[in-house]
């Protein structure tokens, strides 16, 4: 987390403490994850088994990829409520390209990513250029993409039965025993982490979140970089759409609502602050894992589903409050 921009002097101090507390939060989150795994393993012999652990990772992938993308906008102090429906819209576009137009799978993949990127770009444009608050801009995109998905498909799922390769993207196994979707998720995590900590995009991302005005005054084109960041988030949503469509071997136009909140919860549990300027990709990955380990483990322990939802909610409160308490101490 040595992201603190060297080019801009003003926001550095706040960012460095941010980086430190981020590290501590990650440690805390990681420790909670380990504790959860231990508790569930003791509670049920069926939990700590290779196939179940693979299952947990597979079920983390879609929300996890959305959360990776969300980390970028949330660090700017923004939000993206369109994550879930942009994902769905992208999967629908993949279906249109592969099934309706009959083009080969790679075109579908590129098209899905582009569809996500375009949605992100438009959100970014509205936020940065038109000064629409991120909450509203992305809420609008959420509705637009949700509606478009239904219009394009005629409210019917699109199937990929013609091309068996497509289903292999997520559930094929290039490494024996481990579905590709897990590898893709982790690989995207590494890429996201590099973008955030090693590139100028990441540097400006943190600068925008810590102090947008100061960043602008020091000569950074904040409009351009904000659009870039929202576009990145869109790209991740697009990839999540491809993974989901591949796993279900179909593009389901009515899916995806509510996924954005799960993704945002994962980001927040991972120590990224909704007020911006603080956050990390590793934290987000851990946050997403905590959510799915909790869901899976409680089910395996036969905790009633109504209570599982309550427990996940309480965990979010604890995670965020622990973060606030610690930061206040500093």
């Amino acid at each position: 987390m040595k992201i603190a921009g060297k080019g801009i002097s003003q926001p550095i101090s706040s960012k460095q403490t941010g980086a430190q507390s981020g590290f501590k939060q990650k440690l805390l989150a990681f420790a909670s994850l380990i504790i959860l795994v231990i508790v569930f393993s003791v509670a049920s012999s069926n939990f700590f088994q290779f196939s179940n652990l693979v299952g947990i990772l597979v079920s983390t992938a879609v929300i996890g990829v959305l959360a990776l993308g969300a980390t970028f906008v949330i660090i700017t102090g923004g939000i993206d409520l369109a994550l879930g429906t942009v994902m769905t819209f992208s999967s629908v576009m993949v279906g249109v390209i592969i099934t309706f137009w009959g083009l080969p799978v790679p075109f579908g993949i590129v098209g899905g990513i582009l569809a996500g990127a375009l949605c992100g770009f438009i959100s970014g444009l509205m936020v940065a250029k038109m000064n629409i608050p991120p909450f509203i801009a992305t809420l609008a995109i959420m509705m637009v993409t949700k509606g478009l998905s239904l219009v394009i498909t005629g409210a019917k799922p699109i199937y990929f039965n013609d091309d068996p390769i497509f289903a292999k993207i997520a559930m094929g196994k290039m490494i024996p025993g481990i579905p590709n979707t897990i590898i893709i998720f982790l690989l995207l995590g590494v890429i996201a982490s590099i973008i955030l900590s090693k590139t100028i995009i990441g540097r400006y991302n943190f600068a925008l979140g810590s102090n947008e005005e100061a960043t602008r005054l020091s000569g950074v084109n904040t409009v351009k970089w904000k659009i870039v960041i929202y576009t990145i988030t869109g790209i991740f949503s697009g990839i999540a759409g491809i993974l989901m469509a591949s796993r279900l071997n179909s593009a389901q136009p009515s899916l995806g609502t509510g996924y954005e909140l799960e993704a945002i919860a994962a980001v927040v549990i991972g120590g990224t602050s909704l007020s911006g300027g603080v956050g990390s990709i590793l934290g987000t990955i851990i946050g997403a894992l905590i959510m799915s380990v909790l869901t899976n483990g409680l089910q395996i322990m036969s905790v009633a589903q109504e209570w599982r939802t309550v427990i996940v909610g309480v965990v979010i409160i604890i995670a965020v409050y622990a973060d606030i308490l610690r930061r206040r101490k500093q």
Partner: protein
Amino acid sequence: MKQRRRGIIMLASLLLATTLLGACNNSDSKKSASGSDKPYIPVISKGFQHQFWQAVKQGAEKAAKEFNVEITFEGPENESQVDKQIEMLQTALDKKPAAIALAALDSKAAIPYLEKAKENNIPIIGFDSGVDSDIPVATAATDNKAAAALAADKMAELIGKKGKVGLVVHDQTSSTGQQRRDGFLEQMKAKYPDIEVLEPQYGGGDQLKSTDLAKAMMQANPDLKGIYGSNEGSAVGVANAVNELQMGGKIVVIGFDSGKQLMDAIRSGVVAGAVTQDPIGIGYQAVKAAVQAIKGETVEKNIDTGFHWYDKNNIDSDEIKPLLYE
């Protein structure tokens, strides 16, 4: 200055938008007012995105054509949006229709509106889960409890009447969700004492969520013999889970409803079979009953639209094929 100008622009565009909307509404009401040649029947379902509702819509449209009435078909996005459905009901009443066909998400919430309809002599026809009240003159619906009991019988038969089975149910609050759960559970309890039924899991009909739930269920119970999925999304999710864990042939999957993926899974043998309703019949019977009620004819109070078991042997038969939708 700049802000003020922006304010004026916004105000102007808002005005423009409302005028446009107003114009649309006007033409709408004019149409229904002047369209006295054709009775207008709004059909308010519990959804529209799902394949099932599209099939109901198809049946409703068929009846509308046959009996020369005008219908609109609408429903909320998911089965928890009770408030949205009530709004639709309110709007429908405002249009002074000849009759209303309604599949209530929450019967109690709808009662004040149904009473208003009764005062205005607008007959209400229930369909699908129907409306839990005396007001509807008729209800066209599947007996979901009996249908779920059939699923339980088939499950028991296929696992040899002994062992552990699980349920992935689409909803714990809607009446179809409850009936399809309880019908299964009660039948198991009453007739098959050697079958242990696990705590039902609820996946909201979301394929991805249902897949993960079914996978965890199989992980937690290595001795599991079978899983019942209570609607299309749940059943397809269970089938996905069985495929992902390569348990095909080891776990008996019983589904509900149809749809291309579920039918493919039945043809390939991953899913043993499913209970189907007659969605086209539901839509058709609802509109037909509405027409009869408008004309003042007597209408059968409970129109059972039926249910059927299908598996890979009879999936293409003349009896079953028309009931399935892709």
